């Protein structure tokens, strides 16, 4: 069995061991700027999925997307990457990798009971920041969101949903160096 795993890892780059979602924006953020404004105003229904191919789109695993993500440099040093999660990358070249594979809070809301418990920040192949949750807390997400939500702080911040078996869920904000900034309670 061990040799089969070694052969598998040799055949496929480490990136492909993890199931990245090709529909996830690179910075993890659902905001997208527009080339030209339009207000969604009418819909057309198609019974044949080949219409997507005609527009250069791909379907698979319940996702619609245009291209696969390029492998992100620097993740090879992250040995404890969370399986099934996505790497988020900022325009400045910071990559946020979720780490840990824990079942200490088995809510399974994202499809399995394996949850991330920390994150690492990589830039230019170097680890520049890390954070690890305590207690029964896990990250209830498959990717970090990167956004500049604190104007007085240089650069972007990291937003993650934290789930606690006692306190429920909340959004937490971190610096790119792994420093905790603030949280917002009151989520379901």
């Amino acid at each position, binding site marked *: 069995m061990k040799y089969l795993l070694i052969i598998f890892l040799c055949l496929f780059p480490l990136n492909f061991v993890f199931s990245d979602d090709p529909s996830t924006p690179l910075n993890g953020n659902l*905001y997208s700027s527009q080339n030209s404004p339009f207000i*969604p105003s009418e*819909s057309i229904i198609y019974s044949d999925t080949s219409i997507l191919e005609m527009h250069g*789109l791909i379907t698979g695993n319940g996702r*619609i997307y245009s291209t696969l993500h390029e492998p992100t440099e620097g993740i090879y040093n992250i040995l404890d990457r969370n399986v099934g999660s996505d790497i988020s990358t900022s325009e400045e070249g910071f990559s946020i990798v979720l780490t840990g594979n824990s079942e200490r809070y088995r809510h399974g809301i994202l499809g399995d009971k394996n949850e991330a418990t920390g994150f690492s920040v990589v830039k230019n192949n170097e680890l520049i920041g890390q954070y690890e949750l305590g207690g029964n807390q896990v990250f209830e997400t498959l990717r970090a969101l990167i956004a500049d939500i604190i104007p007085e702080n240089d650069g972007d911040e990291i937003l993650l949903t934290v789930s606690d078996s006692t306190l429920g869920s909340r959004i937490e904000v971190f610096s790119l160096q792994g420093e905790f900034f603030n949280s917002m309670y009151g989520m379901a």
Partner: protein
Amino acid sequence: MKLVESASFSYVSTHQIGSNNLNMAVSSNFDGREGPELLIPSSDFRSLLVIKYHGDQVEIINEFVLPGRLSTNIYLENTIIPSIWVGTDNGLIVNIL
């Protein structure tokens, strides 16, 4: 810095329990005016709502009833003529223009 809720709106959802699809909403400045809008499913995933925020007010700009339950991510095709693509649980594809 403190995160403060400025507006809220119920009866919408972006995730189905047990799914690893976290891309069931998109945000963009669709109308080109101040502030972004949100394209988000209703809580039963049978409609898509276009929502705009005005300070602490929330306005539904448009609503699209889907021919089934939303079963894919919401893909924003950001080309010269932008549009939105989604799939439903009965195998249909919806293009929103």
